[in-house]
């Protein structure tokens, strides 16, 4: 008993002596374990703090790029659709349309490594190994003309790479450059010549359609004018409700009967699971191809047939062979996209759970003829 008390007293004294100024006031939280810190503290800083051991060359980087990045950022980092352009743009920062890329704008290489490793590829983040990240970073440098094709990037030489726009940034200077101008006495009357309208948003017409709200609660639908709203008759107000109620259920078409045989719970589960696909694939009414092809009608169709979508050579080959997306083929593909069609560009690690794959296939089937 007394021994025990002594031990406590000694420990308490030691703790006090060790950190007298920063004692834990509440004692909540527990010590973070080294493995936990290693798993979460992946930040890489401009001076190389946080860089893991590893290396990768441009050659491997190109392959990793094609597999993981090219679908959004283009084969040569030139960008695709509205996704960010990664290479080029040198000398454009003073132009009317500056192109901000790793080469033209990013001041630190550490930012590339940190971001690629923690946040990319979009929709399947944190799948890249350290070596792959070094290799992709090397490829990005190469595509920006910063290094040669035989370049190998590693934690050893990382901080020796000089970024073209390293000196392109200044720390916020608004207190000096703007405050003296704007901390003033505000003019209240006759503050200048009468103004003219120089630009109108309606001339550009890029705003999505929106309803307008009137004070009495009336909502004007997009395009409806104030005059139309005030002239509207109650009879027409009431009509749509009755029509809607009277409208008989449409006769089910043959294919709808087939769709109806799907288990609705499976389709619903599949719709939920499809969230992980949505960043690249659209499905349903008005679905268009984006990063990945639109997926209406995919079940039972020949692979690689969506009009206008630029398939990888690996996929184009399967299309030529006439590969059909049967349930079995989809299941195998979704389980491991890279193994099933090697060399395809879908940056997705796959769905391990068989039930989840079945649900996804049910959902895809519900959007297929």
């Amino acid at each position, binding site marked *: 008993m007394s021994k025990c008390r002594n031990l406590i007293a000694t420990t308490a004294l030691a703790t006090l002596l060790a950190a007298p100024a920063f004692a834990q006031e*509440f004692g909540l939280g527990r010590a*973070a374990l080294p493995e*936990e810190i290693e798993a979460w503290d992946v930040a890489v800083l401009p001076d190389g703090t946080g860089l893991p051991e590893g290396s990768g060359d441009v050659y491997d980087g190109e392959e990793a790029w094609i597999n993981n990045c090219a679908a959004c950022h283009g084969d040569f980092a030139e960008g695709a659709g509205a996704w960010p352009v990664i290479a080029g743009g040198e000398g454009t920062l003073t132009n009317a349309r500056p192109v901000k890329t790793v080469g033209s704008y990013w001041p630190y290489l550490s930012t590339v490594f940190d971001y690629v490793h923690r946040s990319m590829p979009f929709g399947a983040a944190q799948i890249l190994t350290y070596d792959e990240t070094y290799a992709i970073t090397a490829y990005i440098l190469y595509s920006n003309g910063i290094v040669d094709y035989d370049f190998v990037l590693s934690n050893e030489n990382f901080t020796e790479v000089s970024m073209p726009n390293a000196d392109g940034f200044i*720390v916020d200077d608004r207190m000096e450059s*703007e405050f003296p101008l704007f901390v003033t006495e*505000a003019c209240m009357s006759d*503050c200048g010549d009468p103004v003219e309208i120089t630009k109108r948003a309606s001339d550009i017409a890029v705003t999505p359609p*929106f309803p307008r709200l009137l004070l009495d609660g009336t909502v004007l639908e997009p395009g409806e004018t104030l005059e139309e709203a005030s002239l*509207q008759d109650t009879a027409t107000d009431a009509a749509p409700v009755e029509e809607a109620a009277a409208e008989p259920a449409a006769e089910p078409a043959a294919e709808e009967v087939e769709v109806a045989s799907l288990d609705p719970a499976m389709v619903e589960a599949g719709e939920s699971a499809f969230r992980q696909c949505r960043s690249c694939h659209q499905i349903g009414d008005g679905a268009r191809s984006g990063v990945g092809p639109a997926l209406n009608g995919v079940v039972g169709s020949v692979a690689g047939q969506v009009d206008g979508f630029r398939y990888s050579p690996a996929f184009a080959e399967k299309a030529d062979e006439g590969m059909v997306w049967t349930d079995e083929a989809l299941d195998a593909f979704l389980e491991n996209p890279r193994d099933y069609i090697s060399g395809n560009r879908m940056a997705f690690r796959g769905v391990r759970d068989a039930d989840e794959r079945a649900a996804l296939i049910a959902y895809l089937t519900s959007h297929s003829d």
Partner: protein
Amino acid sequence: MTDQSNDAPRKAGGASRRDFLRTAGLAAGGAALGATGARANTPDPLITEVQPYASFTGEGVDATPYGMPIHYEEHVVRRNVEWLTADPISSINFTPIHALEGTITPQGCAFERHHSGAIEMSKQDYRLMINGLVDRPLVFTFADLMRLPRESMVAFCECAANSGMEWGGAQLNGAQFTHGMIHNMEYIGVPLRVLLEEAGVQPEGKWVFVEGHDASSNGRSIPMEKAMDDCLVAFYANGEALRMEHGYPVRLVVPGWEGNMWVKWLRRVGVYDQAVEAREETSKYTDLLANGKARKWTWEMDAKSVITAPSPQAPASHGAGPMVITGLAWSGRGRITRVDVSMDGGANWVEARISGDAKPMALTRFHVDHVWDGKPMMLQARAVDETGYVQPTKDQLRAVRGLNSIYHNNGIQTWYVNENGEAENVEVS
């Protein structure tokens, strides 16, 4: 079903409020009624006839365990501008500020910005790590956070890109789209200072790097002085748990500073001797100046205001006579001390009435009670904050920053209101 039953009174009665107004000669438009009011020729059936809702019973207390706004308000929603971004999962939508009043933004219609989508995370799965240059790297559970001293704070969260599309000239039509990347909530949480003190920041720890649990793990560097000052590790907003899209169960509140720093699903606070210079603080949210150099660390959101109504989505369709002009003002550097409103594009100004308390680094509501002559107006608002900073025009800002800056546009906004009360986003000389 609800729609029909709720609409039934108006339709079954055979006369709508609109009919009555027309009969009474109060048609929408520029009818010059003056301030003397209207006179009805026929009795209003909404008054003289017993309406179904005045006779039959309504919904019981068990009908709606958690309510949504009544369906008449279903247009008051966040809206998206598809062409702005490549994908809605890494994108932004806009608060319907044209249809809201007061200062608190309901969570359900407060703008969202996600970098890899809004994630579902339970309180039980939540962990927060404090590590780096600290004496004791710590892991907190949600329950741990709930046992630490709490503070409350009202703060606006404005995306650095709010009004960015307007930098080159009037582009989007509507206050929601020009100024809707903002919300203002009452938060409850634990000061970040308390957590840092638990871990014991070492003398060389000058910065914290905050990052999220989501797939982007969006991270930002914050100088230690700010982290120790007023940042809040928040878990309640507007009286209830954070909504999923606002970072449930825990987000960071960084009062007055750009919204990108308000990391949602806060996972880790790393203490370092330097800024991490992550992607979102170098390649994004930096201000490219005319000479090709870019400003970084432009964290404080300068004084700004906008008239929320009338505005393109909320026309002044009532015609001449009394009207209310209302809007919002805010500053990331302190309290709003004054808001001026101009009806003629900035030549003459009147001081608006600030309604309610002007809290530092929070949205402030202003009103002008105006008697409109029915002639076209060019409406502007101009905020002044406690530093004496007067919100500049876009031209004044562009003279300093050039045309490529885009982020942190706090220039004065102009709505042209025509004689019918319809409003449009314009830029003036």
